[in-house]
């Protein structure tokens, strides 16, 4: 079994989706049924080959990383550095092959599901094309062996998510959401880019291996651990953006404007998990501080979003917030050092959350059709308050949905139980080791919340009575193309696929193939080493399990009490704690906050700058403009613009300040100069400038009046002014001329005399 085959296969896994994108984008319209069959087939081929790759890799080369790279760019023989080339390539290690398979599974099933869901959509083939493009970009992230292509993939998934969220771009809300998603992600990416810049600056390479080796050999940015921590955190910013972590989580709920299968694929299973994958990928270069930071970010995110999820009524919004919260879990898990658990939760969560979304998709689909038949366009097909009692009508959807819910709430015998439990154990262990007990506390609390809101969702949606009797008769189970994926996901949500022991993930194969790697950072800033941590984990395992079981049970119980048996009236409670409820309902007012500060702020700034540009910077030239107009059309009136004169003074002031800046600077700064000196120089310049301005203003103010009263018709300044003044000397009276001759004679005489 040779490695090249694997490499070739995985590269083809990379390219086949791209191929499907190209085919559909160019010929989609002409192909039968928009070419969906082609796309889907191609994706299932990918699925097959990625399974093959995974098994081969795990069977034959369990503990080596297969690398393949090529020289992408050569900077030649760079002065002071030597030969500098940039190599790009792929790496096949256990992490990547598993992730690749996960992506393939979800993507292919979503393709299948979409055939039913997107039936007779306006841009059917375009939709499938973009699905393919997304899969390609996601695979780039998964397979890359360097930061550069990682960043590339990062942006590419961003753009494909932009395109898919904005699929129904006629809706303004949709295109807004798309832009929001992209911009917020880009903010995160900035951090990542800065991190990459530090890395490249230090190591002159992008390749993970070389970087890690360099670090382990003691070469770290600017020779200080703090910079290493900073680099780590900056790179983690990328994850914050993609995985919708606090404070950049605001885009994910809005992203639900996109088609539901897209939400399932991108905003639940794969892209948002990319952040987690990134953290896992560069886990070894995080210092202890960085990890703690990561852990807290994860915890905070998990908590905030879980609380918000309780109050939401839009089925997809609930799922969105639960996704954020689960991602927070994974990040937290990685942060505390439960490397495997974190990634494990990624895989399991991918399955059941994708399932949940597809399930909600089929519900919405049904609702939508029903409403369509009723010609009812007011009612929101996504609002759970309009649902209920769908259980009888859509059994498959219901049962699968229930299984997913159990999984996410961490009920035994589900995959979710295994992964979640190991994360919780990890947090507990971390608490014991470091004393950061807040993290496990949040972890367990959130586990309860999750169980509660998920069952709230199930109960309100499927159980009880439907709100509208003539609608319920119109609701039907979705077609096979949609239910089959649900069933597959449901099956994949059972423990058996991950660990034969339903109560200990550690015995599962994932733990075998993905042991926690050892950090490469200098000892001083290292987190607790693997064996220390595993020891603690071992102790923490059972307490954690029981605790989580109890809490989850309580959550479910509360949900039933409140929403099924109605022992507690939810509305009353909401009334009682109105401020809290409002606070949660409005998602902690994050959007409002950002809207007020950043969006509005930016727009205000831009407008101010535009004004500045048109009136101040351009002021001088405007005068020239008016001036030329004045000349050509002979309008002296053009010159009466008082507004312009002030801009001229400003211009002069600015010019002086610039000059002064440069001269003072040149006197100030030594050859090897520091920014401070420039600032100082600039300050001096500004002072000088403003002084000139005021002097000019004061003087010229009077000047204006004098001119306007006296000699020339309203020419206030500049050569135009001189032009007119001197022109006025040309009185046409010969004797005036002669007087000027004498005058000139005298003046010259004195100049000459006192030279």
């Amino acid at each position, binding site marked *: 079994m040779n490695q090249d085959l694997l490499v070739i296969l995985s590269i083809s896994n990379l390219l086949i989706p791209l191929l499907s994108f190209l085919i559909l984008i160019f010929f989609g319209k002409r192909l039968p049924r928009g070419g969906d069959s082609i796309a889907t087939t191609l994706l299932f081929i990918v699925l097959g080959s990625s399974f093959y790759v995974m098994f081969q890799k795990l069977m034959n080369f369990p503990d080596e990383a297969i690398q393949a790279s090529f020289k992408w760019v050569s900077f030649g023989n760079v002065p002071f550095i030597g030969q500098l080339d940039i190599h790009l390539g792929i790496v096949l290690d256990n992490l990547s092959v598993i992730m690749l398979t996960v992506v393939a599974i979800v993507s292919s099933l979503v393709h299948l599901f979409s055939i039913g869901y997107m039936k007779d959509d306006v841009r059917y083939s375009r939709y499938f094309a973009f699905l393919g493009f997304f899969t390609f970009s996601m695979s780039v992230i998964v397979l890359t062996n360097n930061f550069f292509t990682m960043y590339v993939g990062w942006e590419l998934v961003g753009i494909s998510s932009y395109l898919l969220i904005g699929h129904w771009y006629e809706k303004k809300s949709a295109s807004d959401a798309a832009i929001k998603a992209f911009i917020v992600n880009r903010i995160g990416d900035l951090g990542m880019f800065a991190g990459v810049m530090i890395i490249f600056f230090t190591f002159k390479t992008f390749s993970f291996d070389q970087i890690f080796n360099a670090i382990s050999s003691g070469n770290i940015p600017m020779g200080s651990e703090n910079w290493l921590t900073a680099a780590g955190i900056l790179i983690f910013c990328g994850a914050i953006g993609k995985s919708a972590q606090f404070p950049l989580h605001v885009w994910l709920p809005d992203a639900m404007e996109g088609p539901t299968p897209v939400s399932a694929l991108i905003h639940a299973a794969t892209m948002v998990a990319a952040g987690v994958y990134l953290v896992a990928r560069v886990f070894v270069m995080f210092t202890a501080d960085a990890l703690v930071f990561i852990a807290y970010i994860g915890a905070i995110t998990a908590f905030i979003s879980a609380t918000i999820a309780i109050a939401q009524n839009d089925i997809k919004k609930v799922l969105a917030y639960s996704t954020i919260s689960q991602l927070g879990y994974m990040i937290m898990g990685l942060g505390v050092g439960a490397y495997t658990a974190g990634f494990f939760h990624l895989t399991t969560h991918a399955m059941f959350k994708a399932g949940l979304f597809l399930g909600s998709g089929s519900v919405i689909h049904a609702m939508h059709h029903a409403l369509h038949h009723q010609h009812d366009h007011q009612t929101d097909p996504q609002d759970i308050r309009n649902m209920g009692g769908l259980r009888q009508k859509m059994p498959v959807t219901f049962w699968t949905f229930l299984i997913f819910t159990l999984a996410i709430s961490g009920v035994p015998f589900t995959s979710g139980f295994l992964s979640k439990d190991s994360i919780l154990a990890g947090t507990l262990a971390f608490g014991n080791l470091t004393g950061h007990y807040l993290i496990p506390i949040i972890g367990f609390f959130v586990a309860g919340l999750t169980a509660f809101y998920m069952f709230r969702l199930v109960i309100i949606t499927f159980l009880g009575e439907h709100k509208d009797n003539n609608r319920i008769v119109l609701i039907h189970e979705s077609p096979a193309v949609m239910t089959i994926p649900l069933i597959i996901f449901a099956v994949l949500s059972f423990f058996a696929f991950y660990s034969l022991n339903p109560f200990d993930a550690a015995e599962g194969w994932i733990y075998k193939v993905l042991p926690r790697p050892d950090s490469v950072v200098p000892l001083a800033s290292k987190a607790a080493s693997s064996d220390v941590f595993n020891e603690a984990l071992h102790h923490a395992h059972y307490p954690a399990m029981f605790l989580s079981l109890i809490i989850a049970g309580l959550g479910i119980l509360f949900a039933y009490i409140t929403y099924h048996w109605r022992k507690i009236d939810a509305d009353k409670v909401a009334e009682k704690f109105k401020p809290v409820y409002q606070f949660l309902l409005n998602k902690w007012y994050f959007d409002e906050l950002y809207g007020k500060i950043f969006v509005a702020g930016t727009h205000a700034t831009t407008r101010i700058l535009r004004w500045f540009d048109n009136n101040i910077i351009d002021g001088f030239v405007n005068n020239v403009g008016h001036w030329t107009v004045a000349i050509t059309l002979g309008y002296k009136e053009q010159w009466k613009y008082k507004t312009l004169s002030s801009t001229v003074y400003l211009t002069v002031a600015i010019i002086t300040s610039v000059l002064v800046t440069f001269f003072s600077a040149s006197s100030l700064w030594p050859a090897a100069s520091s920014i401070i000196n420039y600032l100082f120089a600039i300050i001096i310049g500004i002072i000088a400038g403003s002084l000139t301005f005021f002097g000019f203003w004061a003087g010229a103010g009077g000047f204006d009046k004098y001119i306007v009263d006296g000699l020339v018709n309203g020419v206030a300044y500049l050569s135009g002014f001189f032009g007119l003044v001197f022109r006025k000397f040309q009185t046409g009276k*010969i004797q005036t001329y002669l007087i000027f001759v*004498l005058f000139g004679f005298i003046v010259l005489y004195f100049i000459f005399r006192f030279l």
Partner: protein
Amino acid sequence: MFSVGLTHYLVLSAILFSLGLFGVVTRRNAILVLMGIELILNSANINFIAFSHYGKLNIDGQLAAVFVIILAAAEAAVALAIVLNIYKTFQTVNVDEINKLKE
């Protein structure tokens, strides 16, 4: 006994020169302006002759004076012709009113 020296001539010519300039800039009548010019030229002549006589210098100065006198005559002739023309077209010889060309 009072004797006339170079200085007196220079002072005289200076006075003449200033008078000439004064007349040129103050008189409104073109003819008078021309007379002012004549004064200026003659003040220069006085200088030339005075210098060449008292300064024990060569004859150049006196030559110059002769030339200048002739030239002044020519200039005056042309000037008067032009003034006549002006009077024909403008019906005035007041130089202040002849200011159509300006700015």
